[in-house]
């Protein structure tokens, strides 16, 4: 599909890829040596970005469930786009978490050789791969018909790719279409429990750590699911506005629906966040209060108050409440939510780590790696830019050359 933003986004992504490659080169050549995090703050910006993309994939996941499992017709036209978005987000997640490992190569075989099923990281690995396989298949079956039928209309490399993806087929009849619909429906069924457990497990991954008072709460997995749906839903709403510009009636309907859902999720998320802060401050526990103070009045106070609270919450709240009939306002609100959500993820990961777990650790042994003071350095930002640019390029190429946006003239019916 041709769209206005394609050239400018492509140039941005290419520039990002070139600039980011300096950081990637350093990372791949020198391991984790160039990063700013250390042993007391062992996770940094890349884990925050992993969580951001996890959330973005959740919104798209929700839309695919609504479309292909519950059969809500309003979302049919963005179904394939959502499935493809889940895939792109999973790719970005994979890059961020692999690059965060000290020994990347072992991740490719050690999980199979000596898995530890009591570790939630093992389950995240299993569920991540399950989601990846499901969404590769789902996206493929959603666009297969359009690919087979589109071979004659393509030329050059794109034609070769289409022929390759057609797996030798030249005809796509009604029987095949019905079979693909059934496959997509079955995959949607399968993805529901796997997806919910996957997103919940990512929250539980932090929640089970008994020495981390901010994370160690039964509410954390719930907060994760809500945060994921909010950020991902906002991205889907924004993309819907962008990709349905040719059909204003459809665009207005979808944006209105999604806007309402985002408003609801935003209110729930802010309520949960308020509970987290108020309960934390009420406990008076020094480590909890220190962590929370790190967010609210620490060196990154602006990250919380300005980026997250003002730009990412209050303005969208106002737009979604008072201008919900205006699709452009809803799209802007959603854009602000997902673009500032890295601030939420960063403020989730870092503050609990940024507190010494034993008194005297700060003066016991001096080294920059043995400090709770952390701010992402240039290398971390460059690598992040590279991964995001790579994800953007995959997304742009997919939406431009594969029949993802206009597959089956607005998606297929769910098989009921």
């Amino acid at each position, binding site marked *: 599909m041709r769209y206005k933003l394609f050239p400018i986004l492509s140039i941005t992504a290419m520039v990002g890829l070139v600039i980011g490659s300096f950081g990637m080169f350093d990372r791949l050549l020198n391991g984790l040596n160039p990063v700013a995090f250390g042993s007391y703050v062992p996770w940094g910006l890349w884990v925050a970005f992993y969580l951001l993309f996890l959330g973005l994939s959740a919104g798209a996941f929700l839309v695919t469930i609504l479309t292909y499992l519950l059969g809500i017709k309003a979302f049919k036209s963005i179904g394939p786009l959502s499935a493809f978005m889940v895939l792109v987000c999973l790719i970005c997640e994979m890059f961020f978490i692999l690059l965060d490992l000290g020994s990347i190569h072992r991740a490719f075989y050690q999980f199979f050789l000596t898995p530890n099923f009591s570790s939630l990281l093992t389950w995240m690995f299993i569920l991540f791969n399950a989601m990846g396989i499901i969404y590769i298949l789902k996206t493929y079956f959603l666009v297969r018909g359009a690919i087979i039928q589109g071979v004659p209309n393509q030329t050059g490399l794109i034609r070769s790719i289409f022929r390759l993806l057609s797996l030798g087929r030249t005809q796509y009849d009604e029987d095949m279409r019905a079979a693909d619909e059934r496959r997509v429906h079955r995959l949607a069924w399968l993805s529901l429990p796997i997806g919910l457990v996957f997103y919940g497990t990512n929250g539980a991954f932090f929640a089970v750590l008994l020495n981390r008072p901010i994370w160690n709460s039964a509410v954390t997995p719930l907060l994760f699911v809500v945060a994921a749906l909010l950020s991902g839903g906002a991205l889907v709403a924004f993309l819907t506005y962008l990709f349905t510009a040719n059909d204003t009636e459809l665009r207005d309907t979808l944006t209105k629906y999604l806007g309402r859902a985002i408003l609801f999720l935003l209110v729930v998320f802010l309520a949960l966040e308020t509970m987290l802060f108020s309960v934390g401050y009420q406990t008076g526990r020094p480590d909890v209060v220190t962590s929370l103070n790190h967010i609210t009045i620490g060196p990154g106070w602006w990250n919380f108050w300005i980026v997250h609270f003002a730009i990412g919450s209050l303005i969208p709240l106002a737009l979604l409440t008072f201008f919900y009939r205006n699709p452009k306002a809803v799209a802007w609100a959603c854009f602000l939510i997902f673009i500032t959500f890295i601030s939420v993820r960063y403020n989730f990961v870092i503050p609990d780590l940024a507190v010494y777990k034993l008194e005297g650790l700060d003066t*016991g042994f001096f080294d920059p*790696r043995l400090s709770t003071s952390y701010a992402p350095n240039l290398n971390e930002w460059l690598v992040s830019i590279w991964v995001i640019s790579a994800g953007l390029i995959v997304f742009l190429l997919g939406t431009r050359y594969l029949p993802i946006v206009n597959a089956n003239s607005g998606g297929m019916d769910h098989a009921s």
Partner: protein
Amino acid sequence: MSRFLAVEDQLVRMQRDLNRALDGDPQKVKWGMVIDLAKCIGCHACTVACVAENKLPPGVVYRPVLEYESGTYPAVGRRFMPRPCLHCQNPPCTKVCPVTATYTNEAGVVVVDYNRCIGCRYCLVACPYSARTSDFGDWYTHGTTEAQGVVQGQKTAAAGYEADPAAEYGKKWPKRGKGSPVGNARKCHFCLHRLAVRMLPACVTTCIGRATIFGNRNDPESLVYQMIGSARMFRLKEELGTKPAVYYLA
């Protein structure tokens, strides 16, 4: 009792305890440590000995000595607390390791298999005592002059000390480069490589206040067993249920 000393040094007693443990049934050996805070003078000799014994790179430390100040002038005090890995009997770190790279061995020591560790650092986050550090591949000689010399010069110094890793876990590791243990989680292992050759851990032998006691905590004749029974005994963050095998005497 030693035949040569008027008063037996507790190091001699611990050496005897160690020999007895190694000569006995390996199934009955559970190593343990007691640190008498009243005897610790905060000299950091144990920290330095550990760093030297295990050739720890910058940013990796197995046994820092934490310092606390208490009281108000003129009634002030200063206390010191060495903090090795506590070798928990219910360790949070081993449960979270996704590839079973860290586990409790048959002698109750929490170890890391450097050739399995993927470097996710989940164990660092899970440890309530911050007893694990990650090896980020830093070098002491990094950024120093390239000039040739005996004691100075990046290549000379690196080749003479940093490049050859210690025989941790009783294994010969390749020259320090980008492979293990770079990128891995690292921690105190009670100097298993020394125990294997009947030597007490480096921190124990270098403790000038004799504040660190080591031995088989299952052996009623051992010093460590007797000290665990002291009324002064406490364990760090007992409320977490981690059951450390490193005990402190208040």
